[in-house]
């Protein structure tokens, strides 16, 4: 039998080898089992990139397809300050190319963050020059910017979008969901150099739909041009014009002054950004007398030829109502003449006959003191004291358009009802997105009578300057005193001049309203607003190819 000898060195070697093996197995188990999920996730994060696919914002066009708002591609320069090795040198380089303050850039580049915008939506050519510098940590990406090709045209109507292309005002805000579309998402696998290896998932972006407005670019331009001239001529504070199709409720133009460049909307004041036609209300003055007369006609209290014996003033409780101009102490005027000569005394006399409840009812039937539901944000409903809170003298104010405030849009829509055989149609701005409601405001007989009476107003009354060669015009002038906010009383030096009318009078196809706020050199609507109406109407009739109806 061979004697077995214990080999110490072999035992040490074997033991060490065993320990190494155990260690190796342990480490393998750790990396493969315990740490595996975390490592897998980290690897996935490093190689997978999820990118948002921006949805292109839809364009806004006028009724003829002319583009009013489109999107342009601009360059945005971003930085990862953690990757910038020499911020001062980079700031100096970029400041030269981007023409911005070096100190501002340096402040951004030394921020303790992984991402910072250096410039957003700048000229793409500048972006290309920045890209050409190939600075580590500086990236140039493309971003969409809203662009309004016509500059100030319909700027208060169109509104604007924010830096993230979200509509913040006007039609841009109202139809943001339609225009914006839905952003997509794409996850790709990339290698260390950033090369795309595989597409893991794609959710395509859905571009926003284009929006066609009822606006006619040419008529809008003319309306803006005319009211700007009026503001300049009469040193007015501001002006507003509405051109409307009475049959459909489509707004063909909605102009405001001053013109604001929609591409620089942020630099305009709040007052300049307002679409006064919809969001501001004013005392309509004499243009509101039509409502009083309509109530009397509808109630069959009067006919257009009913005569009234009027004095130069009328007293209702402690309120003495005067005429706007000197008149004889005793006059016999028909209802038509009361409207044509814009008699305050006559309107109050008729209003007293109509009574509070019938007048309030007619005011509501014409859509005043309530929102018309136009597709524009911030519509106001106007102000009128509740019928039960009318004082004794309220009935002496409201019939002639005082003590009540309405929006220009409400007034234009009410006159559209007269033009449309007594049917009130919801005004709207989007061509095919709105199904407008309609309801009867007055009977077609009363509407026809009012059109006749308003034609006389233009032919022989206060609205002579609103005439359009070749066409019969029906309309009404208005000169409303404004209340002095300090005294709370009507100011004799501050007026809102207006004219609202329809053309051709026999079968109106257009209703046009012009209001001029605080004209300084003249204040009567007949002188300030009526000629503007005539100019706009003349242009719109030619543009739309509406043939003449009257023989000159």
């Amino acid at each position: 039998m061979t004697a077995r000898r214990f080999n110490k060195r072999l035992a040490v070697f074997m033991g060490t080898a065993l320990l190494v093996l155990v260690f190796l197995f342990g480490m393998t188990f750790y990396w493969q089992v315990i740490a595996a999920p975390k490592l897998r996730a980290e690897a996935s994060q490093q190689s997978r990139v999820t990118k948002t696919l921006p949805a292109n914002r839809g364009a806004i066009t006028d009724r003829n397809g002319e583009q009013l708002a489109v999107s342009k591609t601009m360059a945005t320069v971003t930085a990862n300050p953690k990757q910038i090795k020499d911020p001062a040198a980079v700031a100096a380089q970029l400041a030269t190319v981007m023409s911005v303050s070096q100190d501002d850039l340096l402040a951004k580049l030394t921020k303790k963050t992984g991402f910072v915008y250096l410039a957003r939506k700048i000229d793409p050519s500048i972006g290309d020059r920045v890209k050409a510098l190939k600075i580590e940590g500086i990236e140039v990406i493309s971003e969409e910017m809203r662009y309004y090709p016509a500059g100030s045209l319909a700027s208060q109507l169109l509104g604007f979008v924010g830096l993230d292309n979200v509509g913040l005002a006007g039609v841009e805000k109202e139809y943001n969901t339609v225009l914006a579309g839905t952003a997509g998402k794409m996850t790709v696998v990339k290698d260390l150099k950033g090369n795309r290896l595989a597409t893991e998932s794609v959710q395509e972006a859905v571009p926003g739909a284009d929006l066609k407005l009822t606006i006619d670019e040419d008529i809008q331009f003319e309306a803006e041009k005319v009211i700007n001239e009026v503001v300049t001529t009469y040193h007015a504070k501001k002006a507003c014009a509405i051109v409307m199709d009475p049959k459909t409720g489509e707004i063909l133009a909605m102009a405001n002054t001053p013109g604001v460049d929609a591409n620089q909307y942020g630099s305009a004041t709040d007052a300049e950004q307002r679409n006064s036609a919809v969001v501001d209300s004013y005392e309509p003055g004499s243009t509101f007398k039509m409502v009083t007369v309509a109530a009397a006609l509808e109630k069959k209290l009067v006919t257009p030829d009913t005569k009234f014996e009027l004095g130069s003033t009328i007293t209702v409780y402690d309120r003495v109502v005067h005429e706007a101009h000197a008149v004889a102490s005793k006059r016999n005027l028909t209802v038509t003449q009361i409207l044509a000569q814009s008699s305050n005394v006559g309107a109050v006399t008729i209003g007293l006959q109509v009574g509070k409840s019938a007048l309030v009812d007619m005011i509501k039937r014409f859509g005043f003191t309530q929102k018309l539901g136009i597709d524009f944000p911030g519509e106001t409903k106007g102000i009128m004291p509740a019928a039960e809170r009318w004082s004794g003298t309220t009935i002496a104010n409201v019939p002639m358009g005082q003590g009540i405030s309405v929006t220009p849009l409400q007034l234009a829509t009410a006159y559209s009802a007269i033009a449309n055989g007594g049917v009130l149609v919801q005004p709207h701005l989007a061509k095919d997105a709105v199904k407008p409601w309609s309801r009867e405001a007055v009977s077609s007989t009363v509407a026809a009578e009012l059109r006749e009476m308003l034609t006389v107003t233009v032919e022989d009354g206060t609205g002579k300057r609103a005439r359009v060669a070749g066409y019969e015009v029906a309309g009404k002038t208005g000169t409303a005193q404004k209340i002095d906010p300090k005294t709370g009383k009507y100011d004799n030096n501050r007026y809102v001049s207006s004219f609202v009318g329809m053309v051709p009078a026999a079968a109106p196809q257009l209703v046009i309203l012009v209001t001029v706020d605080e004209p300084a050199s003249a204040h009567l609507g007949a002188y300030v607003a009526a000629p503007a109406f005539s100019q706009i109407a003349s242009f719109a009739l030619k543009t739309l190819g509406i043939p003449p109806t009257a023989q000159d």
Partner: protein
Amino acid sequence: MPTASRQTWMDAWEGDLNPSAAARRSAARVGARTSATRYYGREATARLPKPAPEAPRSQPLAEVKVRTTGRTRPWFMLAGVAAVALILLTVVYILPVMMNSSTTDLEAATGRLQSKQTELVRAGADLSAQVAGLSTPQRVAEVATKLGLQPAASVHYLQINAGMAVAEGTATVANR
């Protein structure tokens, strides 16, 4: 010519070749016996004579010398194994790598095309914006004014009575 004795001998020989009647009967009996089932049964088998044991060979067989080619066969096998391994390697590793490579190339090409598409769409939108900017009423009015054009002071509408056919070149139009 054979002699008589020889002829006799030959006849006898041929006579022997033709079985006699007794011989034919005997053969028929044997045939009947062997064709019977019983002939191959256990009894018949039992009756079969056992073969005589082979006598042992007295001399041993000569040693056969086989010439071996021991070195040639493993080489063939190794080559075969290598070839199979190569094929397997190709199938298992190289083919997927090649496929991945081509997929990656396609992916990169798709990415480039998508970028190009985006660029083209954007370029189209930018051009459209430029055109829109050039055709605004304000610009048209400015250009028209520079060219000495003015809006028409009045517009005359022609009334064409129904039923009057007007054709180019006729006396009606030319008034000749």
